[in-house]
């Protein structure tokens, strides 16, 4: 089964538009101005689902889809956020607690309706929604059983649109998990760049290994405990990448990758983590008050080694050669750091496969994010050229 990248882009676009409509409905119902942060789609395994959802307590509204697109959609709030939404709805409608719960369900119904609206047109076939179900769960159980089962077997496509209120502390996600077989068929085009779907997951495994290597390198250089928290291969509109990284200030390094695939690799530390890591790399009690030349030198050196470790397995598995440039040191808003990277890739593609790995350092004291953005067509070519395996 092959996935046509253009079709995947098309579905991502439909989901983005759907999320905008859902956000507008919510704004109209509650008077709270909403902003859609980003919509991404990834093919996730059971492990990734566990990493993504574990330890959080959710309230959700679940609806099944039937017809032209089969699967499940879930509007999921972390518990505190759901309570906040209930308060907002109470204020807006002046109703009781019980009604607020049912209005969360009704709200989910309206929002998911908005989200799916437009998909039927694209597919040329009606999509029916089953009645909304109010759910509460801890961890991945907030997702429907079928989806978790599918993730165990062959992976499941997970669409996620993040919505955030502009003036109050309210954020949540709309998840869509289409039924695997039907969706893979919908994604199979006859032209354009195609990637065999099983190799996409093979590449995700490779990326996970790379993140493990990079985490190991940090451990070796600093003597601190490190652990890969989350690693995911996402398919996102390029313009959404800076927003996903956010406006916080980061210290890091940017590399160009040369070879097949070419692309970019960005390693970002929050300022505190950068200082911790840098001082751990120095002998004695050396540390800097502000981010200066010492931190810069340490982060560049570490970034270099991490990057080699990260992409090490790629060339072996893909049977190609990949090199990286010397590190470009950056210390700025995350979104601004990403802007020239997406600009460079943006001359050739509209969407990107982003490998996004988070490494925890020293327990939860520090963290490091690695973003790898391979050239989409070259990645497709390299993956397609692989000899078929079992």
């Amino acid at each position, binding site marked *: 089964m092959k996935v046509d990248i253009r079709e995947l882009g098309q579905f991502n676009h439909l989901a983005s538009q759907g999320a*905008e409509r859902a956000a*507008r409905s919510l*704004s*109209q119902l509650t*008077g709270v*101005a909403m*902003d859609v942060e980003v919509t991404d789609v990834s093919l996730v395994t059971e492990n990734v689902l566990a990493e993504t959802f574990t330890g959080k307590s959710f309230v959700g509204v679940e609806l099944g889809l039937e017809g032209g697109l089969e699967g499940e959609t879930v509007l999921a709030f972390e518990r505190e956020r759901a309570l906040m939404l209930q308060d907002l709805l109470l204020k807006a409608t002046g109703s009781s607690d019980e009604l607020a719960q049912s209005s969360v369900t009704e709200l989910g119904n309206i929002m998911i309706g908005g989200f799916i609206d437009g998909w039927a047109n694209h597919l040329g076939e009606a999509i029916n929604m089953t009645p909304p179900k109010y759910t509460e769960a801890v961890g991945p159980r907030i997702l429907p059983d079928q989806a978790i089962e599918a993730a165990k077997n062959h992976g499941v496509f997970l669409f996620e649109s993040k919505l955030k209120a*502009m*003036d109050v502390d309210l954020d949540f996600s709309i998840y869509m998990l289409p039924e695997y077989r039907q969706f893979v068929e919908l994604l199979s085009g006859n032209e354009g760049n195609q990637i065999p779907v099983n190799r996409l997951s093979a590449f995700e495994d490779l990326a996970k290994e790379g993140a493990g290597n990079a985490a190991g390198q940090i451990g070796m250089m600093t003597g601190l405990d490190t652990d890969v928290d989350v690693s995911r291969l996402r398919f996102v509109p390029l*313009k*959404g990448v*800076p*927003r996903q990284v956010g*406006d916080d*200030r980061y210290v890091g390094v*940017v590399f*160009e990758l040369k070879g097949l695939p070419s692309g970019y690799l960005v390693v970002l530390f929050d300022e505190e983590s950068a200082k911790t890591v840098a001082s751990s790399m120095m002998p004695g009690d050396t540390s800097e008050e502000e981010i200066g030349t010492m931190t810069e030198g340490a982060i560049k050196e570490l970034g270099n080694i991490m990057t080699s470790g990260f992409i090490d397995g790629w060339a072996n598995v893909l049977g190609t050669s990949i090199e990286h*440039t010397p590190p*470009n040191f*950056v*210390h*700025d*808003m*995350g*979104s*601004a*750091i*990403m*802007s*020239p*990277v*997406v*600009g*460079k890739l*943006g*001359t*050739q*593609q*509209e969407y990107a496969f982003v490998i996004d790995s988070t490494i925890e350092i020293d327990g939860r004291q520090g963290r490091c994010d690695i973003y790898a953005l391979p050239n989409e067509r070259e990645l497709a070519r390299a993956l397609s050229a692989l000899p078929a395996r079992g």
Partner: protein
Amino acid sequence: MKRFDTDDQPVDRRKIGIAEYAVVTDETVLITSGLGSCLGIVLYDPRNTVSGLIHVMLPTVDQARDSTPAKFVDTGIPLLVDEMEAAGADRDAMEARIVGGSEMIQFTSGGDSIGSRNIALAEQLLDEYGIEIVGSDIGGGHGRSIRFDPAAGALTIRTADEETRTI
């Protein structure tokens, strides 16, 4: 591309993402963040109180395979001017402010940086439209976030080290 209608929701702040734009005829504050090599272009007609902001990413559309007009300087500026006029602005009364176009990263490939090409093309096109650039904060090697307040006719620029200036 995302188009916002001015009457579609009762907010007084609007966040504009990359390759997006907004035009307003009231005092809604227009915000965009994370301008690195990207360029934020604000057009303002104080006579008719029409304000517009676009966050463009690349100079010209022929470089890319998609055609989201708000993503490029060469299609984004005409789009913003048209939308401003449709909202009641007068081209002769428009003034421009441009921010961003920095060189965050020294890439080994490809001549001039995206940032400097974005700036050069924006200056050229605004000149062709006869729209004066009344303020700018461009180039350098750092990122910027901006907010335009139509009530004051002022554009505030913030950098990562929390420094702000207004043009």
